[in-house]
């Protein structure tokens, strides 16, 4: 069904269609509308789920940790400071290999107090063992959330579906929603990782050092396998809906000599900027990352022989953009620019200027674009 809705509404619809059984969340702009919408659905009986009102984000993730360990399909959502407040549980959930989905509506970390988009918040999860995805538009925010449940349950790893504050969360776009039967066919019932009959047991109690070592090694190896699982699940989703939402998207990249790498809503503006430069005959294309974890290693092959510019809406102080650092670890010819941090507006015009400087070889490395 084609309809119009905001990113927040679309994510709530995805959570409903996934037949989520437990939801716990604490309000924070710009995420609040997701759980408000879900609370309404639970209240009206449209969604048969337990909605737990909690006193903090730490408790929100702790609650769904418990319900997901117990075998229930579970969801929470947060942003920025809320994410940082639940940071202990972010690691706890991943280290305990608990499958659940969390929507992170990316928002600047203060001070100064700022509610606009910046990717530094979601990237604080980078090393924790979560699957980390990022949407370009409302449709992708919806699709990634639905797929997140299947991916996390197959891998026994938590999944975060990221989308940019306001640019997606509060912007209405046309979305195509699959019907319940299609989603049911795609998404089987929740699998349980811990099955011990009626015996009592504790998850995540004290253990020998070697157990921790074994667990971390297993998560590392699972993350490597995750690339295949994401691709498999996105193919299954494509067969049912016609939309591919795999690890990354290539845009006019085949014959490109210059490649832009980035993630999130502003990738749409980058496509327009690339169209403009293409009209001037410049062989430039875009590789849009939909996933940061697992990091799609095969982009090394896709980017081979091209001049690469990685665009970051986030930074690691004194070193560079976080995606820039990541790509430099395995891709050749990478330059890196930090822009749009703190929600500073970067539109098509600015991107055209930036990409032109890059093509002319006049772009300063880790240039702070203003």
């Amino acid at each position: 069904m084609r309809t119009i809705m905001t990113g927040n509404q679309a994510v709530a619809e995805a959570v409903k269609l996934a037949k989520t059984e437990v939801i716990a969340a604490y309000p924070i702009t710009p995420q609040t509308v997701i759980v408000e919408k879900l609370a309404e659905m639970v209240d009206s009986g449209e969604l048969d789920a337990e909605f737990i009102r909690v006193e903090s984000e730490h408790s929100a993730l702790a609650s769904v940790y418990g319900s997901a360990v117990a075998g229930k399909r579970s969801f929470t959502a947060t942003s920025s400071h809320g994410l940082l407040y639940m940071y202990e549980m972010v690691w706890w959930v991943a280290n305990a290999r608990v499958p659940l989905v969390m929507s992170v509506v990316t928002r600047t970390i203060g001070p100064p107090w700022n509610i606009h988009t910046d990717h530094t918040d979601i990237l604080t999860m980078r090393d924790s063992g979560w699957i980390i995805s990022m949407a370009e538009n409302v449709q992708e925010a919806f699709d990634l959330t639905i797929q997140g449940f299947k991916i996390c349950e197959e891998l026994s790893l938590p999944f975060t579906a990221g989308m940019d504050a306001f640019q997606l969360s509060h912007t209405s776009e046309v979305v195509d929603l699959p019907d319940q039967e299609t989603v049911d066919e795609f998404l089987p019932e929740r699998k349980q990782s811990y099955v011990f009959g009626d015996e009592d047991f504790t998850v995540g109690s004290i253990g020998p050092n070697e157990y921790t070592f074994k667990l971390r090694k297993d998560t590392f190896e699972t993350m490597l396998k995750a690339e295949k699982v994401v691709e498999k699940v996105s193919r299954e989703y494509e067969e049912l809906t016609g939309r591919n939402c795999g690890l990354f998207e290539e845009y006019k990249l085949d014959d490109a000599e210059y490649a832009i790498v980035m993630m999130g809503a502003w990738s749409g503006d980058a496509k327009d900027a690339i169209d403009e430069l293409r009209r001037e005959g410049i062989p430039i294309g875009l590789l849009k990352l939909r996933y940061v974890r697992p990091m799609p290693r095969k982009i090394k092959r896709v980017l081979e022989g091209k001049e690469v510019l990685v665009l970051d809406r986030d930074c690691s102080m004194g070193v560079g953009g976080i995606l820039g650092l990541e790509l430099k670890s395995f891709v050749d010819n990478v330059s890196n620019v930090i822009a749009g941090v703190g929600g500073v507006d970067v539109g098509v015009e600015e991107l055209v200027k930036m990409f032109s400087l890059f093509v002319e070889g006049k772009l300063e490395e880790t240039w702070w674009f203003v």
Partner: protein
Amino acid sequence: MQVVECLISKPSKGSAGKTGLWRTYKPVVDESKCNLCMLCWLYCPESVISSGGSCIVIDYEYCKGCGICSEICAKKAIEMVLEE
């Protein structure tokens, strides 16, 4: 996931090892004073005290020597003795 057993623990005696090795002072019971009121059993945080019929019995493999039993004993039947 092949490592689920690394995350799971089930109720069992001494799952964290022989914690009696941590002890500095050892609770020693005077059998002639103990009247089996079981206050020490109630207060013991490690569940290492049981009834031996005529006197309480302490499981020294897991007793950490905290001394709560000695403090709580109304009959002053438990003395804390420095371990050798």
